[in-house]
Structures are given as structure tokens and as C-alpha cells.
């Protein structure tokens, strides 16, 4: 047998059929749609200026959308793999000879290429990024966001191109063979129904095995979750004080929190902050990486501090960390959150002084906010 490139005829299994592809494709499309929409929510929530203010209610909103984002991503992995398996023979279709047909074919393959490359990229980098492993040069945030748009665009185009076949395939019986390749004649080890059920099972197992990060009651069975949802004071940590380089400045007895508005600055020692009226709120902290956890925070209402420097309601508030560098050293809290009574400069967590990894001496905590914008190790609070 002389070596030659494979041809579609070399894949005789009846399971590699549009009947299976389209049914898995529907669910793959749904998972990607959920990932895309929840991703947009997350990016919007992080904008310093929001044309339509992001709501502070419900407090657990961001927790749910970001949890859905990573859960849908996990479910998409088996769906994508099975879907690609069913269409793999098409990779080896011989190109048509006529120039016009060749151009059409090249355009379609190009769009599918963009779709597959961006889909694999999004799932792979998302899963890797969650574990704080960054084996790349590019900015994860920028690239994951850009390629999400590319993937969704290519997906919409793909659906438009395939729509008649999708409708035929979904309208016909699962075991109907009228859309199959002529060479796909061999019965598989599984029935088509068996393969579909196996695919749903795989997606379900992928979710259950990883979702403990964001769904508390799954914690004990989520054996592959990045975090067991435990950590100092019962709460996980994304960036430690050591990694942020604040071990000395955060524990310095000369620490002062600067509160500023219109040229007026107050420098408050930790003792002074502790002497102010304290409020306790139960609010979730929800990381962009998908983990989330409820906690009891105690501290000074942001509003109280703003009143001290005469800052009016209805304006955004800027926060600066003791951290000297890093993209999340500062954050801007839109007015709707700054005015919310539940927004605190927190000093205590679950009944104890904040641990240094959770932002000692003081951190921002507001309802329905991405965790990465809940600035830790606060140095300055500035009203616009």
C-alpha cells in the first residue's frame, strides 16, 4: 500500500453524519451563545464609563453570569470534539477544479477555519487562564474578547451557509441517511442515539467535575475544579499580597487611607477607620475566572467616607491600591455602585480582620461587581 492523503471515503462510519452533526451543533451553538453573552456582560461591567449604568442589583448577578460563562465553556469541550469528529472526513474533500467553484469552496473553508481556530482558542485559553497559567505573550483579556467576536461572526456565517442542510437534518429522523455521504455505510459501535446520549453525558460530566468553583453544593464532587472554594478566612484568593508586592506597605504602622475630593484630602489611620460606624453586609465576591463565594464583610460605608470630604452623590469614585504595578492597581466604581448603601471599604471578613491576601488593611467591596475590580490594599479613594 503506497502512502496517500486520506479521502472522505476512508471514513465509512454512519455516525459521521449531518444528522448527528446538526444535533450536537445546536447545543454547541447554545453554549457558545451563552459564553458570548455572559462574556459581553463581564467586559461591560468592567468599563469605567458605562453609557447605560450596570445595575448594582441583584448583588449575585455577576456571580451567575460569570459562573454560566465557565460552565458553558466546560460543556462546550466535549460538544466541540464530537462535532469535529463527525465532520472530520470533510477535511479531506478534494478541491473542485473549476475556478468559480474553487473560490466558493475556499471561502467556505476559510470561514470554517476561522470558526474552528477561534473556537479551540477560546476554550483552550479560557481553561488554561483559569488555572493562572499564562504560557503566551498576548493579553488574555484583549485576545479572548476579540476572538469571541470572530468566533460568533464565523458561527453566524456558518449557520447561514448550512441552514438548508441543518433544517433538513433536524427535520428528519435521527437515523435517516439521505444526507449522508455515499461512502458512510458502516454501522458504528454505538447507534446514533447512543452517540448523542454519550455526548450529553460527557458534557454533563465536564460540568459537574468543574463547576464547584461557582456552584457551592457541587464542591465535593467537582474533583477537577480549579479551586475548592477554600482559602484564608474561607475565601479563595486570585492575587496574593506577596504577588502584588504589598507585604510591607500593607502592614506598615504609618499606613493611611487617603480620601479625596476637589482638592480636599483626608488621611485616615486604620484605627480611625475602625472607630467610624461599621456596617456588615453579606456580598459575594465573584472572580472573572469564574469562582465565586459569599462572605460577610464589615467596614465603613463608602458613602460615609465621601460625606467626610463633601463629595456629592451621583459621581464615580476612583480606587488606588498599594500595589505599585499591574493592570488592576486602580479601578473606577461607577456612581450607581458608589452610592449604594451596601458598598463598603471593608476592614473585616467573616468576623475577623481582613487577612493580608484579602486586602488588609482595607478593600473595596460592592454588590454585583467583577472581583478583579474590588480593589484590595486600598491606598487612595478619590471622588470625581
Amino acid at each position: 500500500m503506497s502512502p496517500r492523503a486520506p479521502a472522505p471515503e476512508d471514513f465509512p462510519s454512519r455516525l459521521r453524519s449531518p444528522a448527528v452533526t446538526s444535533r450536537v451543533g445546536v447545543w454547541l451553538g447554545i453554549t457558545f451563545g451563552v459564553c458570548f453573552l455572559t462574556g459581553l456582560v463581564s467586559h461591560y461591567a468592567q468599563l469605567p464609563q458605562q453609557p447605560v449604568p450596570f445595575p448594582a442589583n441583584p448583588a449575585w448577578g455577576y456571580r451567575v453570569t460569570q459562573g454560566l460563562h465557565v460552565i458553558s465553556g466546560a460543556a462546550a469541550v466535549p460538544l466541540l470534539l464530537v462535532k469535529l469528529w463527525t465532520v472530520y472526513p470533510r477535511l479531506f474533500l478534494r478541491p473542485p477544479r473549476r475556478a468559480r467553484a474553487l473560490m466558493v469552496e475556499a471561502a467556505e473553508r476559510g470561514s470554517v477555519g476561522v470558526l474552528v481556530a477561534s473556537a479551540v482558542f477560546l476554550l483552550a485559553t479560557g481553561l488554561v487562564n483559569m488555572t493562572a497559567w499564562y504560557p503566551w505573550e498576548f493579553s488574555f483579556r484583549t485576545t479572548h474578547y476579540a476572538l469571541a467576536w470572530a468566533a460568533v461572526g464565523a458561527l453566524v456565517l456558518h449557520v447561514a451557509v448550512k441552514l438548508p442542510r441543518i433544517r433538513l437534518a433536524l427535520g428528519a429522523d435521527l437515523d435517516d441517511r439521505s444526507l449522508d455521504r455515499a461512502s458512510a455505510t458502516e454501522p458504528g459501535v454505538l447507534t446514533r442515539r447512543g452517540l448523542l446520549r454519550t455526548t450529553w453525558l460527557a458534557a454533563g460530566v465536564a460540568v459537574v467535575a468543574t463547576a464547584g468553583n461557582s456552584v457551592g453544593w457541587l464542591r465535593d464532587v467537582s474533583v477537577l475544579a480549579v479551586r475548592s472554594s477554600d482559602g484564608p478566612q474561607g475565601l479563595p484568593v486570585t492575587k496574593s499580597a506577596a504577588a502584588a508586592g504589598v507585604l510591607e506597605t500593607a502592614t506598615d504602622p504609618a499606613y493611611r487611607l487617603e480620601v479625596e475630593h476637589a482638592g480636599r484630602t483626608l488621611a485616615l489611620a486604620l484605627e480611625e477607620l475602625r472607630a467610624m460606624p461599621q456596617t456588615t453586609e453579606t456580598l459575594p465576591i465573584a472572580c472573572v475566572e469564574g469562582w465565586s463565594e459569599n462572605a460577610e464583610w464589615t467596614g465603613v460605608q463608602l458613602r460615609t467616607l465621601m460625606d467626610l470630604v463633601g463629595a456629592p452623590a451621583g459621581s464615580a469614585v476612583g480606587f488606588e491600591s498599594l500595589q505599585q504595578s499591574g493592570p488592576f492597581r486602580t479601578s473606577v466604581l461607577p456612581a450607581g455602585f458608589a452610592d449604594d448603601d451596601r458598598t463598603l471599604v471593608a476592614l473585616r471578613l467573616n468576623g475577623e480582620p481582613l487577612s493580608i491576601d484579602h486586602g488588609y488593611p482595607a478593600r473595596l467591596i460592592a454588590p454585583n461587581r467583577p472581583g478583579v475590580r474590588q480593589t484590595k490594599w486600598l491606598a487612595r479613594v478619590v471622588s470625581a
Partner: protein
Amino acid sequence: MTRARWSLGLVGVAVGCYGGWLLLTRQTAADLVSAGQWLVGGVVLHDLVLAPLVIVLVAVAGRLTPRSLRAPAAVLLVVVGSVTLLAVPVLGGFGRRADNPSLLDRDYTTGWLLLVGVLVVLAAVGSAVQLWRRVDGADPGR
């Protein structure tokens, strides 16, 4: 193509181009090279490594496995294979850091073995039940 399909297709092209523009205009050339490596690498790894590997695995296992075990073996391949691929970052623990014990804080190897064990037992029970039903149903004496 109908007008609706053309419109849908054009929306797709526009959205995709917006993504391409976002990708190309927000980063340095070095960042883009790295992103390109990951984009191409993913497709190459799937099409030229993973997919052929699965084909070889199925061919070899098909010869070695008795007929009655092939269906549960195929189910296990799909479920365990895809979940394992998904778990590569946690199983490898490449992101683990001494200063953050709350990250990657499980024994993932044991967890994975446990998961595979449970799935194997489930597959075995499932196929035993099916076999028993088939034998039962095919018995003309009943």
C-alpha cells in the same frame, strides 16, 4: 440563497471582521505572533494529532476488544477522553504558586482516577443491564 440567509451571512461577516479588527489593532506585533501560534496550533493539534490518534486508538481497541465491550468502551472513550483533555491544566498544575495555596488546591490525580473509576463502574453496570435485558427479551420460553 434566500435574502434572509444572505442577510444572516453578511451579519456574520461583519461581526467576524469586527473581531479581526479588535484582534489586530489592540496589541503589539509580538503579541499577535503569539496569538497566531495558539490559533494555528489548536487546529493543527486537533486535525493532525488528536483526530488521527483517536482513529488509531479506535482501530486498535476495536481489534482487541470483544464485541460486547465495544459500546461501553466507546462511551468511556468519549466521556473520559474529553473530560481529561479539559482537565490538562489542572492535572498538570502548571499555574500552581507557593504564595497562593487557594489555587489548584485539590489532589487532581486522585480526583481524576476516582472519576474514571466511577465511570468505568457505571459503564460496566450499564452494559450488564443491557445484556441481561437482551438475553431476557430474546428468551422465547417466557
